[in-house]
Every structure is written in C-alpha cells, then in structure tokens.
C-alpha cells in the first residue's frame, strides 16, 4: 500500500517537473513514454549532482521527456545507490553511480553489490591527487613520502571518511611504497571541504582529493598539489606528475561517474541511453561545461563500464583488506 502511495506522490512531483520544463509533449510509442527519474546518491550542488544534472538536461533534449534528477543522500551514498539498485526495472528509474557503489559489500554493509545494476555507460573519471600545505617542509611527493616513512603516524592525512575512496587511494599508495597502512594516521572527515579547511588551518598535512577541488586553495597560496594517484597524466592538469612515474608502482584508483539502472532493465533502454551518452560526451557544450568545473569527460560503453566497475571494485577491496577495513 505504502508503495502505491509513494508512486502517486512521485507522480505528482513528476507532474510538477513537467510543468517546469515544458516538454514537447509528442506521443512516442517507444521508451520513454513518460518522465524518467534519475537518482543521484550525493547531495545537490556537489560534483556528481552537477554532472548528473548536465547529463539529464541533455537526455531530456534527446528523448523529449523530462529526466528528473532526485537527490537521495545519506550513509556515504549507500541510501541512493541502493535506491537505484532496488528500483522497479522498467527503465523509468535510472541513476548516476559512483565508485563508492563497489565499496559497500567489502565493508560488510548490506544493500548493494556490483551485481545489482545494469550498467549503461560512464561519462567521467578523474584521478585523486595528493595535496599538501604550501608551507610544508617538503614540496614534492618524494619529500612527503620520506617524511611518512620516517614517522608514519606523524603525518595526518584526510579527505573522506575512513574506508572512503580518498582514504583507500592514500593507503593503497602507502602500501605499495612499503609503509604499513595500519600505522598511517587517517583523519576521518565528511568529504573534502572540511579536510581542505583542516589543511589550510595547519592542523593536518595531506589531503587526497581531486585536483579540481583543491584548485582554489592552491591559487590562494595555501596549498600545493604534488602528484596524481594514477598511472596516467590528466588532460586537464598536464603538468602534474603521477605516482606511477615518480615511484614506479602500479596503483590507479580512478573515481568514475556513470549511468546505471537496476538489474534487469529492458535492453532497448540500455541501448538508447548508451548511444545518447556517447553523443553527449562528444557534444562541445557538454565538454566545455565539464572542463569549466575541472571534470574530465571519459566515455565508456555499457560493457566496458561494467568491467571497469568490477575490476576497480576488486582493487579497492584488496586495499581495504590491507588496511583491515574488510568484514
């Protein structure tokens, strides 16, 4: 009963959306015949939300039906990710998933596994960078790692919750450089903004987050970005060296943003949205928007995206294991 009520209320909200965006109203025999809901597991105004809204706006234009972005936040993205996975697989509820979707299962959190989705396509992937204070005693990645080796607990790093991607990227790096991740001092924070504030106030030493998020502080002369935790350089930051170049290691935890639906949505929906995504990622206006926010455009089709998700999930699970985070 509750479910029916929810449906009609959602319908009412959808109708409000219809009025707002003024659709073409042309009757279509194929999907989509009505408004499509796009669930975003992160809060309004964040990077995932901004890119999701841009993609939704383009999808709306292509399919002539509203694509309503709905933020379902909480639990480190778990609430929204499981809402996507548990939606009715009729193609009218899709979502934007992030790399966190692969991390709940190894952490022992119930709700979502990587098998619960139909993967549609990736549109963005940005590496995580190592950022340090501008007035630190070292000014490159080698200096930083030497300091960590000298006193693993003395260098406080932050950027996300414990077990969050920033954390795993950092300890995965340390692990490959023969520093025991269990000894590293990770300061759990609720996202990168509070971590950057801590870095600027001089309370901590390292923030691992995307170079785009640290850019303003770098410009202000408060912080410096020393390396990308990745095996390839970024188009947007061609001068930033990678940890693979510097230390000759193989560790590339690449956060992604992509479209997915619940397991078992119709093939025609996957094909249609996959094709539209490919076109959108080639659209100059979309590329300009992404570049202006410091996001790279990195398209992958449904099959490749599915493989990427599963393989990065495995890499992260092993990083969690080495830090004693698995259940």
């Amino acid at each position, binding site marked *: 009963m509750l479910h029916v009520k929810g449906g009609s209320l959602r319908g009412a909200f959808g109708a409000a959306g219809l009025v707002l965006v003024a659709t073409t109203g042309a009757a279509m025999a194929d999907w989509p015949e009505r408004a499509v809901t796009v669930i975003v597991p992160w809060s309004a105004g964040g990077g995932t939300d901004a890119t999701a809204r841009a993609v939704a706006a383009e999808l709306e234009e292509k399919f002539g039906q509203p694509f309503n972005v709905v933020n379902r936040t909480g639990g480190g993205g778990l609430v929204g990710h499981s809402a996507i996975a548990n939606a009715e697989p009729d193609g009218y509820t899709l979502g934007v998933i992030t790399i966190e979707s692969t991390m709940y299962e190894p952490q022992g959190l119930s709700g979502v596994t990587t098998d619960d989705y139909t993967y549609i396509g990736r549109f963005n992937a940005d590496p995580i960078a190592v950022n340090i204070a501008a007035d630190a005693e070292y000014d490159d990645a080698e200096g930083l790692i030497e300091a960590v080796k000298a006193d693993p607990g003395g260098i*406080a790093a932050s950027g996300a919750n414990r077990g969050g991607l920033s954390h795993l990227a950092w300890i995965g790096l340390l692990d490959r450089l023969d520093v025991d991740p269990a000894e590293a001092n990770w300061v759990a924070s609720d996202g990168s903004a509070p971590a950057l504030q801590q870095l600027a106030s001089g309370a901590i030493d390292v923030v691992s987050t995307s170079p785009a998020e640290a*850019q303003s*502080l770098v410009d*202000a002369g408060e912080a410096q970005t020393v390396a990308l935790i990745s095996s390839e350089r970024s188009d947007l930051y061609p001068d930033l060296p990678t940890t693979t170049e510097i230390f000759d290691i193989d560790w590339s935890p690449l956060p992604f943003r992509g479209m997915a639906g619940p397991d078992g949505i119709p093939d025609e929906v996957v094909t249609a949205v996959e094709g539209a995504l490919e076109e959108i990622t080639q659209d100059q206006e979309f590329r300009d928007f992404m570049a202006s926010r410091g996001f790279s455009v990195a398209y992958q089709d449904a099959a490749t995206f599915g493989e990427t998700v599963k393989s990065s999930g495995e890499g992260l699970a092993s990083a969690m294991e080495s830090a004693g985070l698995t259940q």
Partner: protein
Amino acid sequence: MSFDTLLQAAVLVLQFDVLLAILGGAVYGLFIGALPGLTATMATALLVPLTFYMAPLPAIALIVSSTAMAITAGDIPGALLRIPGTPASAAYTEESYAMTRAGHAGRALSIGFFFSALGGLIGATVLLMTGPLLARLALNFSSFEFFWLALLGLLTCALVSGSNPVKGGVSLAIGLLIATVGLDVTSGQPRFTFGSVELSGGVSFIPVMIGMFAFSEILRGLSGIGAADAATAATPASDGAMRPYRGILGLLKTYPLSLVRGTALGSSLGALPGVGGDLAAWIAYGVSRRFSRTPQKFGTGHPEGLIEATSANNSGLSSAWIPALVFGIPGDAVTAIAVGVLYMKGVAPGPRLFAENPVMPTSIILSFFVANLLLFPLGYFAIKAARMVLKVPRSVIVPMILLCCFLGSYAINNTLFGVGIMLVAGLVGYVMERNNFPIAPVILGLVLGPVLERNFIMSMQISRGNLTGFFERPVACGLGIFVLIVLGLTVWSAIKGRRRVMAGEPDDSLTS
C-alpha cells in the same frame, strides 16, 4: 575594496535584468520560505535549472535573494503555526509563537522581517569592508576550534530550555542520541540502524523539526489541551495588532544592543564554513537571555531575544558566502549549489576572483544588500497576508498544516521514510511537551551533535589521542578556557539555585 570597484559593482547590480532577478528571487523565496517545511536549500536547488539560461550575475543574484528571503520568510510559519523554517529559526520559534498566542502575531512577524533586514544590511556592509580578511581568519579555524564552538552552542541549551534546566538537559541528550544514528564517519560502520538502509543515512533534522513542533501541536489541539491557545491565536487582539512594523522603532530604541550583538555574532560566526549559520542564532538567543535585564520574560513572547537571534540569522547568511567565494569551501548546501552555478558560468571562486575580478564578488554582496532592502516592502505585504492565515477557521487550517507536514518531510529526501520520521517525532514531541520537556534543545542536539562528534574525533585523530591537543593551538586554547568558564558558571548557578530551593526560599525559576 576600492571605491571604484564599488561603483562598478553598483552599476552592474542596478542593471534591469539583475534587479528583475533579485525581485523575482525575493518573491519566489518568500513563497517557498512561507510554506511550512520547504527550505531555503530546496528553493535554491529548484532554481538551478533556471540559471542555465541566465548571465552569471543575474543567476547568482537570483539565488542570493531567494535564499535571504526564504530564510526570513521561514519565520512566518514559525510564528503563526509553530513550524520553524530552518534549524536556525528553531532557536526562537517558541518565543515568536508565544507572542502570537498572546495576540501579537503582527508584532512577532514585524520583528522577524525588520530586524532580519537590518541584520542582513549591516552584515553585507561589514562584508564589503572586511570580506577577504574575514575569510583569511576563518581559514585558521581547525577541528579543535570548531569543537569548542559546537560545545559553546550546546551550552546555550541551558539558556533556551526555559525554567527547568534539568529537563532541558534531558531533551538535549535525546537530540544528541538521535544524532548518533547512521553510518559513523570515522569507521564507516552503521550505528543503531537495525539493518535499515534508510536509517544508515541518519535522521534528518527537518522531518524531526516539523514533527516535533508542528505535528505535536496538531495532536495537542486534537486532545483538547491546546484548544484554548488556538482560540486566542485565531483571534488577534485587534486589527491594529496586525499593522506591519507598528511600534518597531520603539523596539529598536529599547534594544539597540541586541541588534548590534546579534549582527556581530552572526557576521563572525557565519564566516566559519559548515557550522556558522545555524550556530549564530542559537548562541545569539542564549547570549541575549544571559545578559538581559529581564531574563524571566524569555519564552513568554518577549521581543529582546527574538531581535538578537533573527538579526544574527540574516547577517550570518551573507558571511557564509565568504569562505565559498574566497577559498571555494562552501559552508552549507545553499552556497555549495551557488558555487556550482558560478563554476558553470565560468566564474571560478577563489582568491584570483578577488584579485582579478573584484567587481564580481562585490556585486554578489551588493545583490545581497538589495535583497535585504526588499525585505521591508515584501515583509509588509507578507504580514498583511498573514492576517488572513490567522482568520482561517481551525477546521480548515489544521488539514492544511498536516498536508504541509507531509509534503515537507517527504520532499527532504523524496521518500516516505521522512514522513514516518516526522510522525514518530510528532508523537514523541507531544509526550515530551505534556510532561514539560522543552523541544528546542532536541533540535539543537540533533543539529550540533554530528558537528561536535566529528570535530572531536578529527581532533583526537590529529593529536593521536592526546586531550591536551585541544589547548595547544592559541585560538583553541582561548576558546576552550572561555567555554570551561561558561560551563563552570552554569553549573555553579545551578547548584546555588538548588541550595536556595532546599533552604526553602522562593525561587522564581520554579514558579512558571
């Protein structure tokens, strides 16, 4: 800030399209804010698609003015129907509702609009002069300082909880306990979720706030306890009582210090990313009561605390933009969305924005100024309209409030789960109030609990478990000593009061 920049910014803001955006945003914000349960964050998020089609300055001006208006208008349902619009306004909802029940709804609303606008204007002026400097100072605050500030915020509970501090403490503890539900940031482990995915996101304060204040009030009405109150609320003393801004200048003359203290607190605390805005109103209300010559009048519809808290509320709003504009660190959801819009418009926030294009940030602050000026005339119409709300018969208004309760708690995360939380919170609130436990401290605990916990854990991780870390940084040390003195004085006066009671002397704190 050179005069030249100010002039150029003024020319930009006084363009027709910008002024139109400000006016449109203000009217829209007034409606959203006045609808119980709909928040300023929601108002902003709904505007984002519209900003795609606008030039940068009108787009930001639209967001700025709708937020300023929505936050102020959030006081309307707070005063009339006891549904606070924001966690900040929960600090003084009881006070303004008490005023309405005493037949002075017009006065409560006039204070809300007039002193919000004044606070906003003064806040914007302060920002124009000190913006980047304030941002630089705010950036020196780490989790150690945030921890002390959050603790100071919790201590105001003793001041907002009315006549019985022990019951206030119990309410606060309930709020703090609810705040522990959800995924723990430190370990990523679920706490008190009972396997529910929805609960792993924690209990959002908006449905709790709507439930505890509004739904419990409906229950009170149903059970007949509130019937007498409702009757007085529905018939304002006279039409004259609803005349907007009547006697407001007299209040300004009587309580100038409240306005000054409120705006000073708001402007400075508001600049702290993440905690500022909400804290300011609570601390301002507490400070006002502490230093008032007539603290026993607080909670009975006394204007003093209202003036201080509501002016702090709006002056803090503009300050919250400063860390976002200067360092790209958004302090709350609204500024986070606005930063996103700025990026989308090719205006990257950061110090370079101030160095290379100072006109832009100055124009943003100026639009805030204009939006606050608009509060005076729009507030006039809103107060006139509010009179009609009070004339609606109870049999009509109750279902409407109920509908707003449902919509507001549903819309927070687009799930029925929020509605469930609202209903449970309403029942709990009803039982609490029947037994004279104040409700505001629950909201305070719920809002500040996570802030306190996160900053405590972060600090302990940084200092590697050493408690003296809280006194090692100079600012943290100063704040810490201050908080401990306040704590000591609170406990001391409580013990003294208790002794007096035990000695059989009359104590005015127990008579109400």
